[in-house]
């Protein structure tokens, strides 16, 4: 087993497959209080934050923050940004996802102590290899427990 290291710019995860399933869209839409029946069909389009369910896919080397040396008790979720290069993914599509750490930087916290920002970009490509979406996930590692 390799020694875990802090996430660094350029760290890349193993590519992984994500199948956009209608039942999962329905479950996720219901959990986010959707009411429009268009979310519930066999060819539904996924809600804007649906790609967060990619954690159910991939292996241990796919998710770059999960294999790094991170103290999760000191982690705050900062931002989440979804970009779609066309309509968002629809049920029945198979995407290939890959994560990369694209930025790591420190900022002085308002209440003292440094905060380390880690930005992970996940790109999603369709069967033809075209980029269909990307997500920028920002977590903040505080210098003491996040309370």
């Amino acid at each position, binding site marked *: 087993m390799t020694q875990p290291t802090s996430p660094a710019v350029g760290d890349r995860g193993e590519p992984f497959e994500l199948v956009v399933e209608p039942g999962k869209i329905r479950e996720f839409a219901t*959990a986010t209080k959707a009411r429009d029946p268009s979310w519930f069909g066999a060819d539904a389009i996924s809600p804007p934050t649906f790609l967060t369910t990619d954690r159910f896919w991939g292996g241990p080397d796919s998710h770059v923050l999960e294999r790094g040396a991170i103290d999760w008790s000191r982690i705050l979720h900062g*931002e989440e940004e979804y970009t779609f290069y066309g309509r968002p993914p629809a049920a029945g599509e198979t995407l290939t996802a890959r994560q990369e750490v694209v930025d790591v930087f420190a900022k002085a916290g308002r209440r003292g102590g440094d905060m380390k920002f880690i930005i992970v970009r996940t790109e999603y490509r369709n069967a033809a290899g075209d980029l269909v979406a990307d997500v920028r996930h920002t977590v903040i590692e505080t210098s003491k427990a996040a309370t």
Partner: protein
Amino acid sequence: MSEIDPAALQVGDMLPELVDEPLTRTDFVRYQGASGDMNPIHHDEGYARSAGFPTVFAVGMLGAGILGTYVAELFGPENVRKFKVQFREQAWPDDVLTYTGTVVARRENELDLELAATRQTGGVHLRGWATVIAG
């Protein structure tokens, strides 16, 4: 939620607001199961207390998801091109969140929106931004 005419929206127009039901622990659990984020701080009372919180608090991504479906249902899920959220103050069980949006730019058939999820106290739980195809 009332209907809107996306093609007629102008800079400064406000979207119809969505006042959600009070947040419940069941909302947190259902979202966590659906998303796969099982952080116990959002559903395990003992764990949350031992971490120094008075009780469990809302998953930020739950509000983000509701803000996302709010925008998608107004403009159509196929029309969302960008959606960004920034997590601000925590939300707690029984909080009533109001989801709002304002048009801040129009470029031909695209609109930029500024969004928020605001607690009954006036505190901002989430800030958001979206770009949608509109008309």
